[in-house]
């Protein structure tokens, strides 16, 4: 299939291809598959997240050259390698700062940050509130398996308190051999809402269509979008069965505009043993890029300053 680029597509970064009969054909999921085969364990929830993301990209027909997927370290952090797009695989916990640099330097790019619950809320936890504060148009997908997968099964900030080697399929005994995990479990979805995030949603890797839709809504949202993608680790902490039971959609007619209600729901569902899926909260604020436009208007108006002009203040 030959590629045909219109001048316009070039500018906006979308590419269209002509089919046999000259019809314009959009990209398909497989166009976002890289030549690298995922290295995850069979059954890993991350396969679902990968496919959902690829589907969401395909539905939006984004040119791979205009998409940057940024990740830290973890099983989940390997995702960019498997997508046919630009990828930036940084150090553990720093996907968000790196993604913010990408977006700030080139706001035309579609920027997606991905990573695990440990990457995002243990070592990287300090960056989340600040990424939220900047409200850049970035979609952040946290693949939460409530465990450190890559380092073989230590508890993470989202591991339930008291968790240990209870069932055969759960192999997290090493770090908490006596009384299970002593620390409280973080409610990362509620946290992100309180930080002031403009789009907050939850979805489950076993619900493929739903997840693609939710990620897609995150991509479409102009501002920082947080997608809590529950994605089990069958190797070190197999939560498929309980999660299948506890997942349910947000109540019919859920008002995504009420931040306080969204927090309350996120706080209360824990006690109820429920994971709600769907968009908890969404509101459009001006993005960092929007605000920068105002700054530029004040800083230079029509024409940027020359360096010589900047140096005049020292004369």
């Amino acid at each position: 299939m030959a590629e045909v680029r219109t001048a316009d597509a070039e500018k906006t970064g979308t590419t269209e291809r002509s089919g046999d009969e000259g019809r314009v054909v959009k990209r398909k999921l497989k166009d976002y598959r890289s030549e690298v085969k995922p290295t995850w364990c069979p059954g890993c929830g991350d396969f679902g997240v990968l496919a959902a993301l690829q589907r969401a990209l395909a539905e939006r027909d984004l040119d791979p050259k205009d998409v940057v997927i940024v990740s830290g370290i973890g099983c989940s952090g390997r995702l960019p390698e498997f997508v046919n797009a630009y990828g930036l695989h940084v150090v553990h916990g720093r996907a968000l700062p790196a993604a913010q640099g990408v977006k700030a330097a080139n706001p035309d790019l579609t920027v997606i940050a991905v990573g695990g619950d440990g990457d995002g809320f243990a070592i990287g936890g300090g960056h989340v509130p600040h990424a939220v504060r900047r409200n850049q148009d970035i979609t952040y997908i946290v693949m939460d398996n409530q465990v450190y997968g890559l380092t073989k099964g230590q508890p993470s900030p989202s591991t339930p308190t008291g968790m240990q080697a209870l069932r055969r399929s759960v192999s997290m005994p090493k770090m908490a051999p006596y009384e299970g995990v002593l620390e409280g479990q973080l409610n990362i979805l509620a946290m992100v809402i309180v930080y002031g995030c403009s789009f907050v949603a939850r979805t489950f890797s076993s619900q493929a269509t739903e997840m693609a839709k939710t990620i897609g809504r995150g991509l479409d949202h102009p501002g920082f979008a947080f997608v809590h993608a529950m994605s089990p680790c069958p190797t070190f902490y197999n939560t498929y069965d309980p999660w299948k039971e506890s997942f349910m959609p947000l109540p019919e007619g859920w008002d995504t505009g009420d931040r306080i209600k969204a927090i309350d729901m996120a706080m209360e569902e824990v006690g109820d043993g429920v994971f709600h899926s769907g968009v908890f909260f969404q509101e459009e604020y001006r993005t960092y890029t929007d605000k920068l436009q105002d700054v530029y208007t004040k800083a230079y108006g029509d024409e940027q300053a020359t360096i010589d002009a900047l140096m005049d203040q020292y004369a």
Partner: protein
Amino acid sequence: MDQLDLTIRIAGENGEGVLTVGDVLAEALARSGLHIYTFKNLPAEIKGGASMTQVRVQDTPVRSPGDALDILMVWNQENYDIHVGEVKPSGVVIFDPDECEADESLALTQIAVPLQKITKTVIKTMKSKNVLAFGILTTFLGIPVEAAKQMVAESRWGRRKEFLESNINALKQAYIYVADNDIDLGLSVPVNQRNGHAQLIMTGNDALCMGALAAGCRYYAGYPITPASDVMETLAKAMPRVGGVLMQTEDEIAAITASIGASFTGAKVMTATAGPGLSLMVEALGLATMEEIPMVVVDVQRGGPSTGMPTKTEQSDLNLAIYGAHGEAPRIVIAATNTEDCFYTAVKAFNLAEKYQTPVIMLSDQHLSQRAQVMSRPDLSRIEIVERKQPEVNGSVSPQEFDRYEMTDDYVSPMPLPGRHGQHYVATGLEHDEHAHIDYSPEAHIRMTEKRHQKIESAVNEPGFVQRYGAEDAQLGLIGWGSSEGPILEALDRTLAKGYKVAALIFKMLQPLPEKEARAFIESIPVVSVVELNASGQFANYLQGRLAVSLKRFNIITGLPFKAGDIEEYIEGVLQYG
């Protein structure tokens, strides 16, 4: 006085205004076509504590803070006691007799000026005490009152219109007091009109910012830290004027990874910090080396270790700059020597980063970064700007065929940019092959290690990073790096003038090490000593490690910059007594 050379110090309680007096005096003298070099020594507290500011003025470029003082003005007893020992035998002490008692046993000219009383009783606006002090200094320097008035009008004092009248009065009172008391030091510092366009008054941090912008820096991320915060603050204003982005991040780790992200898209990026921040950045510095991402990291060194002495100067982050990061993570390390050089070194830092696709650490230090100096305005049209090697735009190579880390002759590979090139790839901090695919085979690791090392090593051939001065047939050679250049060269000139056979070799590039020049210098001179502001002789050890030679050392760890006199004395000591 054939050559004008005066060192003037003003000292008082932190927050009282002595710093402003020093700043205005320095600016005014500089605006009069003279060369100045300031030096401040402050406590780390926001207010309180003894603080001093010093201005050295010459009619040719000044190279060091000055040795003993020609004029010392102190506002209280504590500062009298601290500083009076540094006044030259021929020097003058100006003190406030109501605030302090002079030690009459000293063989010095000591002049009482009741600054506090005159302000209170005659001027009646306490804010104007600064101007009174300023006026006392200008009249002592032989500056006509009209010229001094203009200086005040053009200063920050002039901008505050509501105080202008009382300020002008304060100035007048100074001249009246001096005339009434018949004081005349016999000085007449020439005040002409400087060519404002051709000459700039800048700190090292100012110059560095302008250099960075001139080199094309359009993204900055940083976290405040003394003495690097000025860089961020200056750029916060300037960056938007040229369409760039500046982000104050939540910490230094975010600053450096955000910079990596921005550079990944092709932006020229910088972050500036001091020691504690650099320590936090070393993990990500290794990432930038691994992913071959260009970036400039400025380290404005201060007294260490740990939080150390945030407002003092030291050259003790060299080890960290060269070796900081686990694994073999080579990067380029360069150092600026003086204010003007901060501009050009910043430009070069960006050029090196882009050319070699590597992080470049640029070392400055507290003293260099915050003192003011006069420099010639850079001719921007003559500055060479290097751009990153990139694939062809609209090139036909598919991402599957494209090798991001292609082994080229110079080990530098074309770097595709998102949004611009169709050759998308995944940059990773894991070991990888040419295609950027993860690869832990011995072969890949060996090839890529060589690529990363050779690329950096070849930067040693860049011109202008090492310079020899002094006698061809020297008996003693001094090696210095970065900001000790000025005092070393001044000491060199003084001792050469006295007939000593000395030479100096000044490094602005520290990694890769210009080995050829270093070896030639060391082998040609019987005694070679490395002069640096740290305890262990970090550069000396590094040189010995690379060259397997034995070097003497001259180290000072007072938290203060070298004086030319310190080094002069050292040279004479070595050559007289071996």
